[in-house]
């Protein structure tokens, strides 16, 4: 595709690594590479070792490059991939030089967008690619691979087809049948609608798990000062991440550790202890604690004394944990509270299990398909609300078939934003294919 411009971007994350990949796509991609390499010719799809130089003739890097001529490339355009040493300054030098030669820094997702515009992937697959890049764990990528393979596409296509079938029967009432709608047809349409609604609701409910797989979850450890929050974090992380001391208020800033629980990246945040304080820095720490609580998926409330009250003041799920079990002889029978000793590492497994259960990680199955992007969720959500409005027409004693059709059409439009348009012809084709029409 000739957009008139060629784009470039590093496709590996920023930072030091063994290899970094810089991708160039567009009609000038090959020409730019030729300029970098001092006029060398490259064969299509063959990794070639080459010394690449900047405009002043200084060597940027000696590394492998591959040319993929369109349309047999990821974007469908001519693509060049440079596999350089993973040093941010080398990567930057490449990107700058290419931009100086007439390339343009790609917008986020632009390679994938071009790939989509060139018909290499469909919209749902394009989203899956974007999510794939972002997905942080093996399990998550498995779920995304599934979407790429079309399992979400398949479910959505079935939904689209069912909605079309429903709509075509409604349109038959409006466009063909000159009789009033029969009671049995009314009942049957209503049943079909309810069936579709349950599919949509199920799909909608998968979003929280899909998002969990993709983005992970945040668990915030809160409690008064000196109850052992930092010790717990270190214990969970299995390393000395946070400074621990007997002095209350040691943790001023929040400390974060990311752990993989059941394949889901879970970010644990150790916060400054909650107490009224004169210390300006500690006061800021407390303010930050409240901010973290706001963004948390789950809160672990820690105390060190069975008589102390647990943190309660949010609408979030909270796990109450009683620390310093090692210092108490007396057994406590309150099952809703988890007893641990962060110091001696007892009860930590039970706590992890409880966290996994509370976040819903144990409900994730790699066999299922999940909605994972906001756009998918919004589409399904608006499909669902249109269907709910449609349902209300059946509750009224006069069925306004026209408005019913309007809402079903709206629900179909929502699915269409994910899969592509259902035209009025598609609906009429169904009417003629399945119903006896004509006087």
């Amino acid at each position, binding site marked *: *595709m*000739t*957009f*008139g411009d060629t784009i470039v971007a590093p496709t590996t994350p920023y930072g030091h690594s063994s290899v970094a990949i810089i991708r160039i796509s567009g009609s000038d991609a090959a020409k730019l590479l030729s300029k970098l390499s001092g006029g060398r010719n490259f064969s299509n799809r063959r990794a070639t070792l080459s010394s690449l130089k900047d405009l002043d003739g200084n060597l940027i890097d000696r590394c492998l490059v591959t040319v993929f001529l*369109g349309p047999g490339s990821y974007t*469908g355009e001519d693509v060049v991939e440079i596999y350089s040493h993973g040093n941010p300054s080398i990567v930057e030098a490449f990107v700058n030089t290419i931009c100086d030669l007439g390339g343009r820094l790609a917008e986020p997702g632009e390679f994938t967008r071009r790939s*989509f*515009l*060139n*018909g290499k992937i469909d*919209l749902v697959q394009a989203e899956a690619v974007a999510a794939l890049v972002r997905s942080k764990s093996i399990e998550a990528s498995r779920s995304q691979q599934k979407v790429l393979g079309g399992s979400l596409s398949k479910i959505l296509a079935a939904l689209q087809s069912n909605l079309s079938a429903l709509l075509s029967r409604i*349109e038959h*009432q*409006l*466009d*063909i049948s*000159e009789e*009033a*709608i029969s009671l049995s047809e009314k009942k049957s349409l209503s049943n079909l609608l309810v069936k579709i609604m349950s599919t949509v609701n199920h799909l909608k409910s998968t979003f929280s798990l899909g998002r969990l797989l993709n983005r992970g979850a945040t668990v915030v450890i809160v409690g008064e000062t000196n109850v052992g929050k930092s010790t717990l974090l270190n214990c969970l992380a299995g390393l000395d991440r946070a400074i621990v001391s007997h002095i209350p208020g040691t943790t001023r800033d929040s400390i974060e550790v990311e752990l993989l629980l059941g394949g889901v990246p879970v970010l644990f945040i150790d916060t400054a202890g909650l107490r009224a304080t004169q210390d300006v820095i500690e006061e800021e720490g407390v303010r930050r604690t409240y901010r973290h609580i706001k963004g948390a998926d789950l809160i672990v409330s820690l105390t060190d004394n069975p008589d102390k009250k647990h943190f309660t003041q949010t609408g979030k799920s909270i796990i109450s944990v009683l620390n310093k079990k090692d210092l108490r002889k007396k057994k406590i029978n309150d099952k809703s509270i988890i007893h641990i000793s962060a110091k001696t590492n007892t009860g930590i497994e039970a706590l992890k299990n409880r966290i996994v259960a509370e976040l819903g990680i144990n409900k994730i199955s790699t066999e299922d398909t999940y909605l994972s992007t906001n756009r998918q969720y919004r589409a399904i959500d608006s499909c669902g609300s249109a269907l709910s409005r449609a349902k209300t*027409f059946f509750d*009224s*004693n*006069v069925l*306004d*078939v*026209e*408005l019913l*059709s*309007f809402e079903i*059409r709206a629900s179909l439009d929502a699915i269409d934003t994910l899969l*592509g*348009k259902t*035209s*009025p*012809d598609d*609906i*009429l084709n169904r009417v*003629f294919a399945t119903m*006896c*029409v*004509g*006087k």
Partner: protein
Amino acid sequence: MKRLQNKFDIIVVGAGHAGVEAALIAARLGKKVCLVTLDLFAVGRMSCNPAIGGLAKGQIVREIDVLGGIMGLATDKSGVQFKILNRSKGKSVWSPRAQVDKRLYEKIVYSYIQKEKNIHLFEGEVVDVLIQNNAVGGIVLRGGHRICSLAVIITCGTFLGGLIHVGQKKIRAGRMGENNAEGITEALVSRGFVAGRLKTGTPPRLDKNSINWAKTTPVFGDETPAPFSYQTMLFDPPNIPCHTIKTNVVCKNIIAENLSKSPMFSGDVGGVGPRYCPSIEDKVNRFSHHDEHTLFLEPEWINSNQIYLNGFSTSLPESVQLRALRAVPALESVRFFRPGYAIEYDFFSPSQLKASLETKDISGLFFAGQINGTSGYEEAAAQGLVAGINATQYVRNDSPIILSRDEAYIGVLIDDLITKDTLEPYRMFTSRAEYRILLRFSNAHTRLIKKSEKFSLLDHRGLNKIRKIQCGLNAIVASLDSTVSPIEINETLVRLKETPIKQKTPATTLLRRPSLEIRDLPKSIFSKGAGTSIPPPFVYESYIEAEAIIKYEGYIKRQNKQVRRMKKQENVLIPSLFNYNAITGLSLEAKEKFSRVRPQTLGQAQRISGITPADVSVLSIMLVT
């Protein structure tokens, strides 16, 4: 015959429903028109069913009426039974239909033509079109006589290469008993136009006296009929019944056994038939589990001996038609005036037209009606009207009238024609209109009066009649702002199983309740005078329209929002010589389709069948870069 003058503004070829509307509007707009027909006695003929209007078509007739066409008025004067369909299904899909006295209809249309001084009606067969420098210059008649004009509108109906099939019998004809037109197709094809073949059918005409009427069920029209034309001030049509009967297993089996004798099944007919109007053999074949199909006995004119058997379109041999029908109760000893038949005819792919109905390649040449692959009197008349207006605009060197998809079914019709592939005769359905809620038969005046006025399609008297109806409607809507007290309405609410009100409530709020209709509201709220300026035939309809405006308010708003989104794309123009092949990102199919159709706007481009959103994205990027 008057001596034929040799120079006209516009020549209209064909005097069917498209041709007469085209000729009449152009003449009224002051143009000298030559209307050429194969048969002076077949002007405005209804070749098939004796009815006008119906689902989606009724709305079109209303639109034609506001835009200065005659179909509505002629129907009001010749209708024998009027009915509003879809009454129980939502007010925006209400569609008026009339059974019509065909002979009277033709007579009325003929009188309109005769009264029009600017029309020269002329009998002859057109065999070629004069073209110079890609502009039309007139026509050539059989025998070689030439008539010159600045614009030509071709409306040949089923007459282009018409071939009738009855069983294995084939007859070259435009309609049963009427000659077809040979030569125009070849002439146009030689100039680069792409032609195709379509098929349609018609049922047998029965002898009234051979039917056992006691075994039939009468069906009447509405007690309070609604006219099609806003110009109809006094309206008191007859209410003559149609009758229904049902086919049975014996009938079905006779048809099933003889399927191979139908040219549709033997492969004799190449054209594609309309799926929405299947032949009886098609119904029997595809829905073999249905033993019964309803048939309608419709009189072709008042006191007609000839009965149109709606629902039994067929091209089976006459003997099989008779045997199958004689198995049906009430038709045991039925006789035919003429059998059902199928007809194949040429059409020109309408993607070769602009939205004005002018051909993209030859300026001044317009196509309208069945030649564009449509079916139906109403669809034809609508195109004829638009072509007539636009040929006039062309002669005046002025811009054409284009109706948008949110404005009129006629807009949907023409936009579909020029962007979609024609695989079967195109018929209007309400579901083709994505902004259906906006396109009510009862708001045709509101939708189209401004355009009608802009193009001077109605005279002052005509416009004033419509304005008066609109004024009355506005008064009714305004009076719905007044409040209703509990005592006035609670009894009704209880009867309708709605919650009673506790305090004075605006009538609009009450009307939004699904079960409540405008007639349930107390008469007192309609301020004196509200609706009194409305001519009697339109009073009922205006109340219904007022109810729709209130009840659908939320939906109307939502549709208007969709319309605004659509218009953004609609207004991106594509240069007519745009080179699609240079866009490497387009799929081969898209390149081929864009190059063939040459859409005028991005909106049209995205509606072309087979075009994906990706193609449109690519195209839109190319248009801005």
